[in-house]
Every structure is written in C-alpha cells, then in structure tokens.
C-alpha cells in the first residue's frame, strides 16, 4: 500500500468544490433548516412547559443540542449517500483510483471536506439560539472545531456503512437502528441523567453525546480539563471509523 500523500487531498477537494458550487443552495438549505426546525419546534414548543433544564433555559439547552443534530445530519448522510452514488452508480471512484490518488486519500479527502462544511452548518443553530438567551462567549469560537472533529468521525462512519450495503435501500436499517438512537441517547433534547443508568453507559460510546457535551461546555463557559476526555473520545472515534472506512472501501474498489 502506498504511503498516504497529502498532496492528493486538494484534488479530491477540487471535485467536492465543483459539486458544491453547483448544489450549495440545496445542501445548505437542508443542513441549516432541519436543526432550526428542531430548535423552534421542540425548544419553543416543549419550552413552553419547561422553564429550565440543567440550569439553563430549555430553548437554550435544545439550541446547543441542535448543533449536534446539524453535525450528525450534515456528515453521516453525505458519507453514506454521496459515497454510494459516486462508487456504485457513477463509478467515479474507479476513475479516480486510476490516477495517482489512493483509496485512503480519497476517503480522507472527502471526509475532511464534509467535516469542514459541517463546521459551518453546525454553528448555525448556536448562532440562532443567541436571540433566545444564549449569552455570547469567546469559548463559542471553539464550536466549529468541535463540529469538525465530530463530523470527521461521523462521515467516516457513513462511508463505512455505504461500503457495507449492497443496495442503497439498506441504508434505512442503519438510519432506524443506529442513527436515530445516536441522536436520542445523546442529550440533545433532554439530559441523559433522566434515563436508566445503562443509557448513560451507552452514551459514552456515542460521539454525538461527546459532541454535545463539548458544545455546551464551550457555550456555557464550563470548559475544564475534563472536557479533554470528550475530545479524546471523538478523536479515537474518528480514527476507528476512518480505518474501517478505508478498509471496506479498499475491499470494494480494489478487486
């Protein structure tokens, strides 16, 4: 296997940039609108009955949680669908791998692009929460970085799933059995302390949970050395899913 060469990444980004230039309104609309709907519907709707949760206004609690919703949706879905379409329907990856680019560089290039985009999309619900009572803080400048590292692992996860399935319809199993629980056992809409204890145990391996915890630490000024634990989990998660993605894609693409 050829050594990883970062010079291949700009070429992979070139493809993403060409596609993004054409489709950015649609991509951005979906990525931004969905978390905002959650923010307003649940934050304000449920917030009418609940004043505070974990010491903050409910809408602020949900608003910061919606950052992770945006991160999850904007990363794992492109990882699954775009990768599957490019590989299976368009055969674009077959073409790319006949150039000096390798499978690892292709997957890392695409995931890093999606993660960078998600760093922006993920920050939108946070900004939108400011008028509802989220106090601006310098720590919030870390949120795009938190989104980036979380999205990197989740995009790799999406790529890995896309390499596991034979037909695109099979994605629905993963959406129901994996992604929905990831979203709800994470503390987006309610603190996981309220759930049975074993949920807490599960949430420790849920990257969305660690993303939310970090985002709230950054937004509420509660960053501490303990926050590094969440960073570590997210980095390890990305390393594992990245390895899995490259492995399954190599198996699919190099016959």
């Amino acid at each position: 296997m050829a050594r990883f060469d970062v010079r291949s990444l700009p070429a992979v980004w070139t493809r993403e940039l060409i596609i993004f230039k054409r489709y950015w309104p649609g991509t951005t609309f979906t990525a931004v609108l969905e978390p905002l709907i959650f923010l307003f519907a649940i934050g304000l709707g449920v917030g009418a009955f609940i004043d505070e949760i974990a010491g903050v206004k409910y809408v602020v609690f949900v608003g910061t949680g919606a950052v992770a919703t945006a991160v999850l949706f904007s990363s794992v879905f492109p990882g699954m669908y775009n990768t599957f379409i490019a590989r299976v329907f368009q055969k674009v990856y077959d073409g790319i791998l006949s150039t000096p680019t390798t499978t690892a560089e292709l997957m890392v290039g695409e995931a890093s692009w999606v993660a960078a985009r998600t760093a922006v999309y993920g920050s939108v619900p946070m900004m939108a929460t400011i008028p509802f009572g989220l106090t601006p803080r310098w720590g919030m400048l870390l949120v795009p970085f938190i989104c980036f590292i979380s999205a990197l692992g989740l995009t790799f996860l999406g790529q890995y799933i896309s390499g596991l399935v034979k037909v695109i319809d099979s994605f629905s199993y993963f959406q129901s059995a994996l992604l929905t629980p990831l979203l709800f056992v994470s503390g987006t809409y309610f603190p996981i302390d309220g759930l049975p204890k074993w949920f807490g145990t599960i949430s420790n391996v849920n990257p969305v949970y660690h993303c939310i915890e970090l985002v709230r630490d950054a937004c509420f000024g509660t960053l501490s050395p303990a926050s590094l634990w969440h960073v570590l989990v997210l980095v390890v998660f990305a390393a594992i899913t990245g390895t899995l993605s490259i492995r399954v894609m190599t198996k699919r693409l190099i016959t």
Partner: protein
Amino acid sequence: MPQSPALAVRNVTKRFGDFVAVNDLSLDVQPGTCLGLLGPNGAGKTTLMRMITGQTGLNGGSISVLDFDIATQSREARAVLGVCPQQDNMDDQQTARENLALWAALCRVPRAQRKSAIAKALATAQLTERAGERVTNLSGGMRRRLLLGRAFINSPKLVLLDEPTVGLDPQVRSDLWLIIDAMRRSGVTVVMSTHYIEEAERLADDIAIVNHGRVIARGTPHQLRERYVGVEAVEYFGPPEVLDEIASKAADAGLKSRRAGLSISVLGVENTSVELLNSWGRLSRRPTNLEDVFVLLTGESLDG
C-alpha cells in the same frame, strides 16, 4: 540494443474465486508502439487493464510500467499512465471543462499548466465549443471523445484504452480512430483492448489475441494472417449439410476452414487450384483477415 519495454507483464495470474480471469499471461510492449489486445468479452482484457493500474491485485507474476513495479510503485506508475475506461465514469452533472479540471488536479498536472492542458484536451476531443455543457447533455460519441481527451491530460507515456469505441455507431467510431491514431503517431505507447477486428487492424502495430486469460497469438496483423490463415480465403454459402460437406472436402485437401452462420470460409487457398475450389460450389474470394485468425485459434466468434 533493445530498449526496455514500456509495459512488461510477466506470468500474471488473477483468480476470482474458482474463475481464472488471467492465466499466466505475459507480454511486452515496446515504447512508441500500439498494441491491440483482441479478444471476446470475458477474455480477461479489462482485468489485465485494471491490474496495470493497480486496481486489481495479482495472484502471481509481476507487471512493470516504464520500470515502475506495480506491486510497490503503483502510484508512480499511475502518474505516467493515461486511462480511458470501458465504462464511462465521468461525473455527468459536471461540465466537460469541470471534468477535465478535476482530472488535471487528480493527475497532478502542475497548476501553471492546467489551463493549457485543459484547452488542449478539449481541442483533442473537438469539444472546445461545448466546454461549458454538462456531460449529461453530450452525445455518446462526444462523451467518448471527452474520455479520450481526459486520458491524455497528463501527457502520459503509456495510455490504456479499454474498448474505446464499444457500442458506438461506425461514423463516430471512425472519428475516434482519428484521435487515437494522432496520439499514436505523437509517440505515446498505446495498449488498446477491443473486440472489433477492424479497429485492431487499423490502429495496432502489433496484436495479442487473448482468450481465457492467455495470449494465444502475437504478431503484426500481417504476420498473424500469414502464420495461421494464409493470404486468401473463399467463402461458400448454403444449407448446413452442404457446408458440412465442403468442410470435409477442405480438410481432405489439407485446408483449414471456419463456419459462420450460413457460410463457410476455406482459408489459405492461394496455392489451391481454382478448378478444385469451383467444384465445391459457387464461391466468392476475399483476402483473409484477423477474424479468420481469431476464430480459427479460439473457436469463438467475435460479436460486433
């Protein structure tokens, strides 16, 4: 002194489960020549092409591309290769220019040279006027021309063309031949797989007939004909019983023959008496061709 070959394939084998796609295959391609890999569908041509780019692993043997060993230096090999795949793998929602720009980046054409490389590829593909058109709006022939132009964007030293004109109508095919011929004459080494006899005859300096994953004959079109089927053939038409009879008479006279539907061709008849041939039925004379060689050697017919 002979130059080192542009492509050296040595005893290469590839198995997919129990199926042997490429079977102990060896071939050399000299720099600046065009090799035609002629074989029916499923002969192992595409597998061989993918092995050369490192996209299909080897179960045995070795391949070197301009002295880069595929096992250890496949990235270096791909940097000097141009590839026109059998299956169109362009992003069809992107324009012709965007597809070429992407390829220039992927093939690491230096930034300063990209613009001129793209313009040259568009000119090669005769698509300068339609550079801003999405690929999905281009005709089948235009897409193929674009794929060919794309394969040359990094000024490769060796180009792999996998069935470059498959499925296109004759007019479009001859347009593409002009492009391939111009490239060939510019000195680049070409390896082209095809199952079109005429394509191989017109473009290839040298032909390797491939069947069941092996090279079963190798030479110039002229050499292959001379070696296996002689210069001239006669063709007879008729019902199967009559053709059977002619086949056995030909065999008695020491001549090779091959059946194709409602006709039989008796091969290498240039030294056979006209009276004898006429006595078997009404005939038409024609020069032998590569198809005769192919069918005789493999017992399989070439479609298309």
